[in-house]
């Protein structure tokens, strides 16, 4: 068997350049075949997902919006070690560390905390390496279905602590659930 005759997919077709007959050159049969194919598509279901009303099914290991966690006393876990920024392949994370003052003990768990913590959502690729790198289990990628909101201003995509830190009432609810268990 020569190499020209092998067809692994079984769909191989010889391309021929022969002259068309009169019937073929009227294109009518070919057009009728084409019309039949498009007619079948008229009755197939559309594959469109009407986005704001419907959302695509997400996978169970889906990684969504980041969240900076609080511990069970409502204190921020992050200690601004910078390992997440170091591990980030997209260089999306920046932060500024600050020393905790004695009166801020109820706000921050460690003696050092991040006074500024920013993720550039235009750079982030949602790989989850920050989550893996974090020694304090402070940053997590949630399964939240909220996508990054569109904006006409680049600055709006740099998410600061006000958007990233877990809301207090959510921390309170978590703690209540844990104590109940």
């Amino acid at each position, binding site marked *: 068997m020569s190499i020209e005759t092998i067809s692994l997919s079984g769909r191989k077709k010889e391309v021929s350049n022969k002259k068309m007959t*009169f019937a073929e050159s*009227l294109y009518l049969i070919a*057009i009728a075949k084409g019309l039949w194919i*498009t*007619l079948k*598509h008229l009755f197939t279901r*559309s594959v*469109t997902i009407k986005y704001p009303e419907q959302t695509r099914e997400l996978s169970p290991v889906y990684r969504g919006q980041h969240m900076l966690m609080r511990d069970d006393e409502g204190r921020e876990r992050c200690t601004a070690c910078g390992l997440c920024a170091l591990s980030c392949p997209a260089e999306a994370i920046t932060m500024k560390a600050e020393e905790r003052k004695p009166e801020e003990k109820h706000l921050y768990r460690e003696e050092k905390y991040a006074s500024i913590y920013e993720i550039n959502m235009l750079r982030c690729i949602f790989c989850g390496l920050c989550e893996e790198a974090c020694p304090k289990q402070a940053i997590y990628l949630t399964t939240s279905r909220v996508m990054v909101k569109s904006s006409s201003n680049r600055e709006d995509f740099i998410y600061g602590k006000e958007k990233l830190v877990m809301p207090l009432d959510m921390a309170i609810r978590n703690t209540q659930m844990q104590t109940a268990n």
Partner: protein
Amino acid sequence: MDQAIIIEKGIFIVVIFAITMLFAMYETLAERKIAAWFQDRVGPNRAGKGGILQPLADGLKLFSKEEFFPNTENRFLFIAGPAISMTTALMTSAVIPWGDKLTLFGRDVILQATDINIGMLYVFGVLSVGVYGIMIGGWASNNKFSLMGAMRASSQMISYEVAMGLAIICLVMMTGTLSLGEIAAGQHGWRWNVLYQPVGFIIFLVCSFAETNRTPFDLAECEAELIGGYHTEYSSMKMGFYLFAEYASMFISSTILAVLYFGAYNYPGMDWVESVAGANIANIIGIFVLFAKICFFIFFYMWVRWTIPRFRYDQLMKLGWKMLIPLAIANIIVTGIIILLADQNL
């Protein structure tokens, strides 16, 4: 002439004009919807329920666009182009029989603006003038792409008019009249011309695609080669007029196809309906039947558009001159022989 007939015809013309415009408007939506369905998509569905207000939104958008004039000395012709296109697209509807007569307030209302005895020639004449809209627009744009598109359009339309005329000759030989009203009335019940003239119908169909500059013969606006063809330089509502004229002429040409070959307002069993419910009811059903046929042909235009890719220019000319014209002439000869044999048998 009494005053009543002027009022009657006046109302009738306004109604036909409104219907043509409404059809042209909603054809734009239908085209996008049908294109979407053929491609397994949804189509425009945001303006109104199921996109029902989309044509209004489109019109509003076109009106609010900047009116751009290219650097041309023929400003008058530049404006005249879309106007001629639109006028010729609307003029044909004057001779179309939209239905049989109705009896209203003791008067016989004939549902045809005017039944001139050379209706068919009138249709051809107006179709030929349609070339000028495109040609003048392309010429006055002062742009070589526009001019090339216009040249293509005019040569294509002139070439296909020949085959179209030859296809019609068979019909005229059979029916013995050029009046559209008589041709429509002659197809009573099931005696539709398409059953006697299938080849002529196919030739006429292909030619009407070419005459309306629709895919697969839309070389005049071939965006891959000519940017936008004859309407490259047009913007705002002048552009809208060209597009609108295309849809209006699509409606009219669907009507002509239905009237000439698919039995116009005739439907099987119309005699029975007339005997049961009276002539008026039968004729009103006839009007709806005609519009159903028109809708089918409009759908067919769109169906073909989203199936077949554009012809190459030499393929187009070859199809017109070397395939359709010999076929049409052969059809004339065969029709003539059959008519002769049928006459001798009687």
